[in-house]
């Protein structure tokens, strides 16, 4: 009897050992499989992302010659210079202002357009196409198009302004207006994308929720506030995050419309990096700015996730 139970215990022990070994083997196997599947993207990321990033961080601690090779190690000096330079601080300031001007307006306008384009009306497909069409226009083409609109003497905008009896505005040359003009251009260009994403989000809300609300006697705005916005919140969250990141990285329209002028008013951070590196050949200082930008975007995104996600209803 006792021998039998002893045997049983032993048997159980050895079984457990076998189980453990098998489990370990399976773990290793699945790890290798995972690595195999990931290897293409790891490779690509390393070549095009991780290596340049490390290189940038490395460069930011050096002075360089015109060809970009390091000359003198300066430690934190590049960073210290940055934060004492009025030009860089101005650039930071402009960037934040730009984000503030563009993101809320873009999201609100495209949300509004998406909501009205989501109604079941005749010919709504036409408006959906129109609203999302700016997505298909390249930054360069759009900028040139706006360049004409902004033209001080024969631009369409000034024609309107003058027709209304006001003085012509130097849209791209007046320091008070340049950042606003750039913002308007950017908003116009981003609306197509955000509109499309938000419309997709709206269409994925089940119609039975609205039917149920109809029967409950809910009005249009009650439904908008209690159903549409909460159900859309994951999409809104995504759109806001992406728009903010995009705004921080704005480059093309500035290069074409203002080249950072007038009086560095539109010298947003990415443009400033570009100028530092490829006009002034200060690769060290440019790298430092790039690192600052990276940390900034990382922080913004982290903050958003921390505070935004609580309000988001994932299904």
């Amino acid at each position, binding site marked *: 009897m006792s021998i039998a139970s002893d045997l049983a215990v032993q048997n159980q022990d050895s079984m457990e050992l076998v189980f453990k070994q098998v489990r370990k083997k399976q773990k290793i196997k699945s790890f290798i499989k995972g690595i195999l599947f990931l290897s293409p993207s790891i490779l690509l990321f390393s070549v095009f992302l991780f290596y340049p990033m490390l290189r940038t961080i490395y460069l930011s601690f050096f002075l360089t010659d015109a060809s970009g090779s390091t000359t003198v190690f300066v430690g934190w000096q590049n960073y210290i210079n940055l934060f004492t330079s009025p030009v860089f601080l101005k650039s930071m300031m402009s960037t934040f202002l730009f984000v503030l001007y563009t993101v809320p307006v873009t999201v609100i306008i495209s949300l509004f357009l998406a909501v009205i384009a989501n109604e079941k009306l005749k010919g709504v497909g036409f408006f959906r196409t129109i609203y999302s069409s700016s997505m298909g226009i390249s930054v360069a083409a759009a900028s040139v198009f706006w360049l004409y609109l902004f033209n001080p003497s024969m631009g369409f905008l000034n024609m309107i302004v003058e027709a209304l009896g006001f003085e012509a505005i130097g849209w791209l040359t007046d320091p008070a207006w340049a950042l606003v003009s750039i913002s308007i251009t950017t908003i116009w260009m981003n609306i197509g994308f955000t509109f499309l994403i938000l419309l997709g989000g709206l269409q994925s809300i089940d119609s*039975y929720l609205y039917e149920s609300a109809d029967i*409950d*006697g809910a009005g249009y705005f009650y439904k908008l506030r209690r159903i549409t916005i909460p*159900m859309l919140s994951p999409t809104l969250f995504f759109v806001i995050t992406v728009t903010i990141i995009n705004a921080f990285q704005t480059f093309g329209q500035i290069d074409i419309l203002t080249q950072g002028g007038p009086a560095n008013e539109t010298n947003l951070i990415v443009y400033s990096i570009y100028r530092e590196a490829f006009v002034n050949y200060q690769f060290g200082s440019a790298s430092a700015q790039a690192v600052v930008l990276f940390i900034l975007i990382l922080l913004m995104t982290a903050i958003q996730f921390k505070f935004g996600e609580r309000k988001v209803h994932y*299904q």
Partner: protein
Amino acid sequence: MEQVELIDITKSYDKQKKVLNEISLSIEKGEFFVLVGPSGSGKSTLLRMIAGLEDITDGTLKINDKVVNHLPPKERNLSMVFQNYALYPHLTVEQNILFGLKAKKVSKVEQQERLRETAEMMGLSELLSRKPRELSGGQRQRVALARSVVSQAPLCLMDEPLSNLDAKLRANMRVEIRRLQKRLGLTMIYVTHDQVEAMTMGDRIMVLNDGIIQQIGKPITLYNEPANLFVASFIGSPKMNLGKAKFSTDYKQLIIEGVLPIEMDPLSVSERLKDVNLTVGIRAEHIFSGMEENATHYLEVVNVEHLGNETTLAFDIGTELWTAKWPGQWMINVGDKIPVRISVEHLCYFDSDSEELLKAATAGKSQEVVAI
């Protein structure tokens, strides 16, 4: 008093094929009215038209004697339980239940009052702060019910509310819904494709097929006197046994499917039955077990199902598969030839061409409906 009245209601989605064809019916106040039919017969469409979620192509819909064809859902003063519950996934149970009251700007005090009452009635008091995804199917079901109860609308529409539940929960909810409806005096229009639900819950049943009313009546009437072959085969479980039949030339025998002769009294055969193609039907429980002396037929068993308190047997009758349901446990094997008793007074007669009922079983009415 008529709560809901439909007059020649027609619906077509694409202006070609009619999904519903000239539906006319009236539903009394406080009635439990069941709409039953196979998938795609137009039950949901009809319900959604009554709710105002779907346009009425043609016809008149009256609620409380007022024409409401043009009214939006919220002005029809009704509540609806959707097939998939339609709970708001981002709101808690409490917010879900109060959604409609807040929309209608009911006072805070009354909201809380009604919430407490309803939650208690539905057994949801403990779950008020949960989100729908944290509930089981049955609990979601109860939230959906609570949402319609809390509105205190006199007319309640339900679209297959029990279709996602397991058998036991379903049986439970059947009783609960029925009890609730009686207690609150609701007028209920209840859609289902489950004929057991229809039979057990309804005051009256309407059988719908392909957008056409097949029959409206009390459950027992539908069971005993199915208006046509469709109702005969749809209502009842197992379905009514049907077979093509012909009289012998002297009208002393009715031969079913060419293989099953049944003795007749030639005098009882009415003229109406003589010159049509006949289909006859008999309920499974009317094929009795026969003793040696009173057996009318010996049939070979092709399948046996033991259900505990009753046994169902299947036979091949010509091309048809017939079933018999006998109370008790019978030790019978497949392949046995067993004596059965089939008598003429349990037969329903249908016209094979028009599929209409010609004559219902005569035995059914006198014997089986026990009035108390």
